[in-house]
């Protein structure tokens, strides 16, 4: 069967294939579709994913996201939407910076990073499990000296040492960090921060030292809070994926909403050359790093490429 020709309302067929007339097969396809079992799980997953896309769209501000989500929730159903929000999903990067391969290995005998984690207390919103504000100094066996959230409980400052088998070391609740927690102004807003500095460098032939320090604002100086000396090779320090992330928000939920500001300010690194001479501190910058955003619902308040960012949701 043929359709009526109506050249004023229909586009002409694409030019890349031979074509004579259009035939109407709607009834045949409808009959086949009617015999195909309905896959409710697929339909739900399809709509859920649209909801996730709407809720985490990096190009929409929070208001626009909420409007898009509201329009979808009516069709998805609130119960299914709640399921999607609460299912744990580790391994996300809410926002943050990864070193380029060249920069990750462009140090000689030592490397060091410093920055201020923007760490609201509590994290607010729907945070109901782990969430980390963390960073590495580029070394494969260095430490992560980081802010660890667990739901809305008191955050902890923790040290995970990649050089050790007993990796968990320092673990201090924020209630014991009053000399270290402070505020800093960025883009005209005061943010709560924890200034952290961690280093890895050679102290002897195949001997390295990891350090973590916190800035004591009460006395105006850095306090050494963790140190570990160990045996390692240059190849161990510079090969592999560990040590590839600068300041990041490591997430464990599929999406976040109504969270307080989190991020990092003033990320800067320094390396020593192969003679052990330290260079100058320099902010992390775009040629040396890439931004990763996994679209888990965070809204970028600002980014200073690539040494500072703050997100909310």
């Amino acid at each position: 069967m043929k359709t009526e020709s109506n050249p004023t309302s229909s586009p002409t067929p694409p030019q890349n294939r031979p074509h004579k007339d259009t035939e109407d097969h709607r009834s045949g396809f409808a009959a086949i579709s009617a015999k195909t079992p309905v896959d409710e799980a697929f339909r739900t997953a399809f709509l859920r994913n649209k909801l996730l896309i709407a809720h985490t769209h990096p190009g929409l501000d929070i208001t626009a996201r909420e409007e898009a989500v509201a329009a979808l929730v009516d069709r998805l159903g609130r119960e299914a939407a709640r399921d999607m929000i609460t299912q744990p999903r580790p391994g996300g990067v809410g926002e943050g910076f990864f070193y380029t391969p060249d920069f990750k290995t462009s140090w000689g005998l030592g490397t060091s990073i410093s920055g201020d984690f923007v760490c609201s207390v509590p994290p607010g919103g729907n945070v109901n499990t782990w969430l980390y504000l963390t960073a590495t100094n580029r070394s494969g066996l260095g430490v992560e000296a980081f802010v660890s959230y667990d739901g809305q409980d008191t955050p902890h400052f923790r040290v995970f040492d990649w050089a050790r088998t007993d990796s968990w070391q320092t673990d201090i609740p924020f209630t014991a960090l009053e000399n270290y927690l402070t505020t800093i102004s960025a883009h005209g807003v005061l943010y709560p921060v924890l200034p952290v500095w961690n280093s890895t460098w050679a102290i002897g032939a195949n001997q390295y030292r990891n350090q973590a320090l916190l800035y004591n604002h009460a006395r105006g100086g850095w306090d050494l809070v963790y140190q570990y000396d160990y045996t390692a090779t240059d190849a161990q320090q510079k090969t592999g994926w560990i040590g590839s992330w600068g300041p990041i928000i490591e997430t464990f939920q599929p999406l976040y909403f109504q969270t307080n500001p989190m991020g990092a300010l003033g990320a800067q690194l320094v390396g020593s050359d192969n003679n052990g001479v330290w260079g100058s501190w320099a902010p992390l910058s775009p040629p040396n790093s890439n931004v990763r955003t996994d679209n888990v619902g965070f809204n970028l308040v600002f980014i200073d490429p690539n040494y500072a960012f703050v997100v909310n949701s």
Partner: protein
Amino acid sequence: MPIDPPPEPPLIIEQPAKPSSPIVDMRDAFARKTPQTEEDRAQARAFIDGKIEMIRRDPSMTDAEKAAAIAELQARR
């Protein structure tokens, strides 16, 4: 050639430079007082598992790069 001492303290970017005081050793106050427990080991595995998921979801890594990075982390579990 090994190096010691460590790098000079970082500059303060966001605030006017403060006078640099000497580093104070506070390790005793911050040191872990208890031995590692089975829960610590489980948490360490979970910590590393989170990184493995981070690799799996990395949009910029090739399959080969992901396989190598995941193998590196699985060896640490």
